[in-house]
């Protein structure tokens, strides 16, 4: 094991001030990027798309207003206002215009937008009509795919409306070779392209685009060097003047040249991190193994005596602040699904080196401490745990967990590495994995994983078994037969599997359509420059240039489906307490618990459709009266009572999450229904699909599109998140939950699994508690669990925060693969977090 120094360094005044400044105002939408890209595209009509992209990137970086915020040591801001965001009309823009007047007041992730900005965006947006990736993607989709999306079986919203992002790039190459080195390699490749090459034109244009883009980033850094210099001249405080002069020196050297110091390395890192996000609107651009690639510079400076650990910590803290300066405005529906202004910039420490030794170093600790210092949602900090992990690092991680910030997330090398190898990744690359976004394992600098490719709601196909493929009066899925024809549990399962297979194929169709649209309309030369083997293959990332290619859509609702199947098995087929038909009725009647507005509106729409078909006139009053009728509908008392009885019987059954083999085995099988079919499908970039089992925060909005389920869940309430047990159903404490979750085959979900656990602060107060907490993680991982994350906060605090958000502006909670400020979350997601498994205890 490598020797390391884990002594904590203090937080400085500068960091306190930078954080305060960052949150002084509500985030704001700025129009500059949209104007610049439109200007550039107008002038480049007719040129190859990759050339146009490079020219636009250059034009944006030359024209974006730049700013150095007071006290910053690491510079580079995408917007003038702190935490502001630019817009990306080339991917989609209609939603923003439609939401101009509501975006400031919505509950999830509101943004301020000035009248002037609206006006400026209205001028440029129309240019993009018919030119966006989302429009092209839609034209590539099968009709039944569009129907399945309308009926909410899955939503590929992420890449449908935005850039892909979700990569980790070669920060190390920029830091240690400089963009100069990458440009030199590109120039060499350009030389090699033979006139007889069938792809001559493609290759030339792409490689030239790479060079244009790299030069654009170098020039952008020089703008900062000039700005720092001119600000230094005006600066009256001599100390700050020195800092500004140093910034000027740094920005004129990196990212063009290899970094000479740790500080220059951090600045080079930052320019890459920032500009990739200016190039595309993709989120989850993940710094990955920051403690590994920054370490050689750190070690050299420390040994040379030119860097103190105190200053190194302050610089890292500054980078953490910058990671929170970036922001992104999503459409209202997506904002619910990704609630919390998160950009999912995942940064991971610890784990193993590519040759299989423990990778813990000083920076592993300093990164964890930086999260404690800035106490903000970015980066999404993670820790890799393996059999040889330093215990000290785990305890330090537990100390961060204890603060309640929801970080770090814990990942298990012992299952992730083999699961990656099983997908064709070589062992050195697998050992070098990092995490993208929420929970997705990824080969640094070599992969286009298309993680987060869609949300697939595993409860919806289950509903279709009960309705024989009919949803809201229309055929929406495959017909699996009337319920009377299903006479055994095996037949029931077979029908569910058929529903799953059918919709999984459509999910693949949707993703591949979007994939093609990005290949055609959004090749990204700068991002491609930093991922192997795009340059050597002279192929953009979006067209299959990466060394490893995958598509990773995520399923969720395992707990609900497993508990549902168990209920059907025991109560319908074994004990014959009720028939499938009666259960179907109980579900349709929401277990006699009345209907909400969602059901009422669906019913009204259905009635409207029928009337329209009959040629009858529809008026608003009639619709309103139908809604009113459904909302106030009273079932006959004996019928209501029966449905309630059925629900009681279901709730009294054992549930997933309690360490009960029979139920957990069903959960394992249910997960396979999603994970097994996917790798049989290919994507257009030459890779395969691989499943993830995690929901981000979509289990709440997508739950609102799901009727009552046979696990006793009421209509439109949240679906269980990730692989976690249903909130409130796990009653045997954390070890029992862990055992149940570990019983799934995590290796087969090689795009990541997500296990949320809520711990009460009282279970994490003493040193012994922390050691036992680490043992809990270890014990789960020994059984091949993949991921764990924790909310350490008491219920009372959350309830109080809901009632008095003003008092809790800084309260960070774990949402899904990320943490967010509790008070910025939508009410329904807040409720879900409050409900989430704080394991039941009698005493």
């Amino acid at each position, binding site marked *: 094991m490598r020797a390391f120094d884990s002594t904590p360094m203090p937080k400085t005044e500068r960091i306190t001030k930078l954080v305060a400044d960052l949150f002084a105002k509500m985030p704001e939408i700025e129009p500059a990027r949209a104007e610049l890209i439109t200007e550039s595209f107008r002038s480049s009509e007719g040129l190859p798309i990759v050339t146009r992209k490079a020219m636009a990137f250059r034009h944006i970086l030359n024209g974006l207003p730049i700013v150095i915020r007071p006290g910053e040591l690491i510079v580079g801001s995408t917007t003038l206002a702190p935490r502001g965001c630019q817009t990306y009309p080339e991917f989609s823009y209609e939603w923003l215009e439609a939401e101009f007047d509501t975006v400031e007041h919505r509950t999830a992730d509101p943004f301020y937008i000035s009248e002037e900005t609206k006006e400026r965006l209205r001028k440029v947006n129309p240019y993009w009509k018919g030119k966006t990736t989302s429009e092209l993607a839609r034209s590539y989709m099968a009709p039944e795919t569009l129907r399945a999306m309308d009926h909410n079986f899955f939503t590929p919203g992420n890449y449908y409306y935005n850039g892909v992002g979700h990569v980790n790039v070669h920060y190390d190459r920029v830091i240690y070779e400089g963009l100069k080195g990458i440009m030199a390699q590109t120039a060499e490749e350009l030389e090699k392209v033979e006139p007889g090459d069938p792809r001559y034109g493609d290759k030339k244009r792409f490689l030239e685009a790479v060079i244009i883009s790299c030069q654009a980033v170098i020039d952008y850094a020089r703008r900062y060097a000039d700005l720092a210099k001119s600000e230094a001249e005006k600066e009256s405080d001599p100390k700050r003047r020195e800092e500004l002069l140093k910034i000027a020196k740094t920005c004129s050297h990196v990212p063009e040249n290899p970094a000479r110091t740790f500080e220059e390395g951090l600045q080079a890192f930052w320019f890459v991190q920032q500009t990739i996000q200016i190039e595309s609107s993709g989120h989850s651009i993940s710094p990955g193994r920051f403690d590994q690639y920054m370490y050689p510079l750190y070690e050299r400076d420390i040994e040379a005596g030119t860097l103190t650990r105190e200053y190194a910590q302050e610089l890292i803290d500054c980078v953490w602040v910058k990671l929170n300066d970036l922001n992104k405005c999503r459409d209202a529906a997506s904002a619910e699904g990704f609630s919390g202004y998160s950009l999912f910039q995942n940064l991971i420490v610890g784990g193993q080196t590519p040759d299989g030794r423990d990778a813990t170093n000083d920076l592993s600790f300093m990164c964890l401490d930086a999260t404690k210092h800035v106490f903000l949602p970015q980066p999404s900090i993670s820790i890799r745990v393996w059999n040889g992990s330093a215990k000290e690092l785990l305890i330090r991680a537990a100390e961060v967990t204890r603060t309640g910030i929801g970080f770090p997330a814990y990942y298990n090398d012992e299952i992730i590495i083999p699961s990656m190898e099983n997908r064709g990744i070589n062992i050195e690359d697998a050992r070098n994995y990092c995490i993208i976004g929420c929970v997705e394992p990824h080969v640094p600098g070599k992969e286009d994983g298309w993680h987060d490719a869609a949300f697939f709601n595993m409860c919806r196909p289950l509903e279709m078994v009960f309705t024989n493929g009919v949803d809201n009066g229309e055929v929406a899925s495959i017909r699996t037969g009337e319920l009377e024809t299903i006479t055994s549990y095996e037949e029931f399962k077979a029908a569910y599997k058929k529903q799953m297979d059918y919709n999984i194929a459509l999910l693949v169709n949707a993703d591949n359509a979007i994939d093609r649209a990005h290949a055609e309309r959004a090749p990204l030369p700068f991002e491609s420059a930093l991922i192997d083997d795009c340059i050597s293959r002279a192929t953009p990332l979006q067209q299959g240039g990466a060394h490893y290619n995958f598509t990773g859509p995520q399923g969720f609702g395992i707990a609900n489906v497993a508990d549902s199947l168990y209920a059907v098995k025991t109560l319908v087929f074994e004990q014959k307490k009720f028939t499938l038909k009666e259960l179907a009725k109980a579900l349709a009647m929401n277990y006699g618990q009345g209907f909400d507005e969602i059901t009422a509106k669906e019913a009204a729409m259905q009635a409207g459709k029928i009337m329209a078909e009959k040629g009858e006139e529809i008026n608003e009053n009639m619709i309103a009266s139908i809604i009113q009728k459904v909302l106030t509908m009273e079932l006959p008392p004996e019928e209501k009572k029966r449905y309630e009885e059925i629900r009681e019987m279901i709730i009294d059954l054992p549930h997933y999450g309690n360490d009960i083999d029979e139920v957990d085995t069903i959960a394992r099988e249910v997960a396979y229904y999603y994970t097994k079919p996917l790798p049989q499908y290919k994507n257009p970039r030459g890779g395969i699909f691989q499943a993830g089992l995690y929901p981000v925060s979509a289990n709440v909005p997508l739950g609102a599109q799901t009727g009552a389920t046979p696990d006793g869940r009421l209509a439109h309430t949240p679906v269980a998140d990730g692989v976690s047990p249903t909130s409130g159903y796990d009653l045997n404490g*954390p*070890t029992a939950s862990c055992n149940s979750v570990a019983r799934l085959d995590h290796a087969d979900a090689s795009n990541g699994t997500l296990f949320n656990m809520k711990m009460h602060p009282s279970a994490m107060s003493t040193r012994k508690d922390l050691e*036992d907490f680490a*043992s809990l993680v270890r*014990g789960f991982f*020994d*059984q091949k669990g993949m991921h764990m994350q924790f909310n350490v906060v008491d219920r009372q605090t959350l309830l109080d925060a809901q009632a008095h958000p003003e008092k809790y502006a800084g309260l960070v909670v774990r949402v899904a693969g990320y943490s967010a400020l509790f008070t910025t979350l939508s009410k329904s997601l807040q409720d879900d977090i409050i409900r989430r498994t704080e394991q039941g205890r009698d*005493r």
Partner: protein
Amino acid sequence: MTDEYGYLNVTGRIFDIQRYSIHDGIGIRTIVFLKGCALRCRWCCNPESQNFDIETMTVNGKPKVYGRDVTVREVMQTVRRDMPYYSRSDGGLTLSGGESLLQPEFAKALLQAAKALGVSTAMESMGFAKYETIDGILPYLDTYLMDIKHMDAKKHADWCGRENTLMVENARKIAASGKTKLIIRVPVVPGFNDTERELLDIARFADSLPGVEEIDILPYHNFGEGKYTGLGRPYPMGNAARPGMEKMEGFKAAIERNTDLYCQIGG
């Protein structure tokens, strides 16, 4: 089944099994609560543990039965499920109650079975049994968490229903045997023993026991109050206030100043 494993068939009465218990002994533990107690301490937070009889308590408005007869084999089915966590934390099985020693054969068999699994054992008990009975258990017991509530026999009898003579005597013998790690635990109860003098009396006694290095002082809490209501019994402690952290810190300091013991607040 040979006699060698006969202990697996021993039957006893428990009222709960609690997993991921981290405040009762080393590491992550599973606590098995044995039903029945010799004392009736006024502050007892588990009144459902006191009667050996199976009884019904109202919990969240619903009747729930407390007490079931189980074999050691059945208990071990649950205990063994957390093996991965025990091995990572040096945890294992803890017996609590009630007073485990009121079911000595069962308690011994449980500990023996845990040892056979290779996990550590602990028992929370005030030592209410003949010493010979205790001595038979000690070979299977790694840690004895022994309650000593007061040094004054009369006051003890007044608040707990019996004098402390037997238990104090047993503490001496257990310590002298050297067969187990003995830790003394003291509930700090307002009006009963929450003075420096009374706590120091206990601490000095504990300090005099050979091999004893640690004393845990546990602040009284009223989390059990609802259970008394659920059992249809009055809550003996009324509105007694819970000792504050400052006060507990003061006791800890006093104990550590006056004895060689390490004093921990909470279990």
